[in-house]
């Protein structure tokens, strides 16, 4: 039981986030209206995605140094969960954009770059499917994964900061950063970060266990 306290914490935090996220009073600013509540769901998705992709790339690096197949299972599971959360983050962002930017898929650089980043990870998953030999698959996809991560950083951190974007936080718009976020929202936002991240780790551990069962002949 002692090992599972964080799962209970994740559930409690998420219940709190979902209930409070839809009911607390938030500042109503311009076209944002009630849509600012998306913040509690949109930003944590990206944090989950980054956590997962980081786990994935670290395991890929470790795989290449030790050739331990377990590392490959970790890397691929993390990439899968990460891509899933990336899609969720993109979906929540697009939903918000529909009502504030006036279009679900705009030509905003941030939206395009994240779409590309997710596509790169989809390519990683497709690459995995297309190679049948387990060792070869592990090795080649580890190499590709490192490339993917190396491109993820310029795509989601550097390019969007260089060009003007409608996204909060770029150019002169307030960024929902610690300085300009309403105190009441912070009370929900920070638990949301922790809760969603824990949830993503939980899903990841489940996936790892499932994959290990699939390959139990190899792992013993």
């Amino acid at each position, binding site marked *: 039981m002692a090992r599972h306290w964080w799962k209970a914490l994740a559930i409690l935090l998420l219940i709190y986030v979902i209930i409070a996220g839809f009911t607390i009073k938030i500042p109503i600013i311009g076209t944002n209206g009630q849509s600012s509540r998306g913040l509690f769901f949109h930003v944590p998705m990206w944090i989950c995605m980054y956590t997962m992709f980081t786990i994935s790339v670290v395991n890929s690096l470790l795989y*290449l140094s030790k050739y331990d197949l377990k590392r490959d299972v970790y890397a691929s599971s993390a990439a899968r969960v990460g891509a899933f959360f990336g899609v969720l983050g993109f979906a929540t962002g697009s939903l918000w954009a529909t009502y504030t930017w006036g279009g679900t898929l705009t030509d905003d650089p941030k939206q*395009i*770059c994240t779409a*590309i980043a997710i*596509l*790169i990870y*989809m*390519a990683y998953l*497709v*690459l995995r499917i*297309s*190679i049948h030999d387990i060792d*070869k698959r592990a*090795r*080649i996809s*580890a*190499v*590709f994964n*490192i*490339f*993917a991560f*190396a*491109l993820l950083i*310029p*795509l989601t951190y*550097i*390019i969007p900061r*260089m*060009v003007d974007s409608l996204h909060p936080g770029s150019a002169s718009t307030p960024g929902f950063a610690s300085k300009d976020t309403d105190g009441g929202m912070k009370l929900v936002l920070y638990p949301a970060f922790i809760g969603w991240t824990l949830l993503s780790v939980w899903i990841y551990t489940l996936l790892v266990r499932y994959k290990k069962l699939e390959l139990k002949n190899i792992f013993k």
Partner: protein
Amino acid sequence: MKQTVHQIYTLVRKDLVLELRQQYAFYGVLLYIISTVFVINLMMGKPDDKLWNALFWVIQLFVAVNAIAKSFMQENRGRLLYFYSLVPPRVFIAAKLIFNVILMMLMSIIALVCSFTFLGNPLHNTGYFVGIVLLGGTSLSLLFTVLAAIAAQANHNAALMAVMGFPLMMPMLMLLANVSLSAFVTVYQPGLPKMFLLLGGMDLLTIALTMVLFPFLWKD
């Protein structure tokens, strides 16, 4: 050190001589460029600036895929094994990178000349554009060489190369299309030097990653 340079030189020369004798990639791609450009010409005559730019970079993308996929396709298993016994993997991939950059620069110039003849010349600043085309050709060839090396491991799957390559390619193409806009009309583009820096940085990143990771790919 001297030996390494000599080995690289020999391998590049071998590829060049092979290409000169067989002219396998060259005529295939030449036909490809001319037919594409001609079809565009038949369909829309002389496109305007922005369209010209977009079409040119799309042509470049497909030329790169075709030209560089070929460079690994002709290396069958036995020959790769032979190289493996002769030279260290880093030397081999360095030679491939250099050869592909040379090949792609040539192809870029041909694509540019074809576009000028069939689609007209809307350029305002031709020298600048030629520079970007060469830079772009280098970037494209570097990245596709890596992808071709990965695809070669996965049984020379050309479709796989497209799936992996296009998402990885998109940020580079977006940057290239953006910086080349200045060649059409005199416009003020803020952040232009930064974009060049980013492009150069991506090239360096690709080279560094390839040099580090290729030995892992080759271990079979």
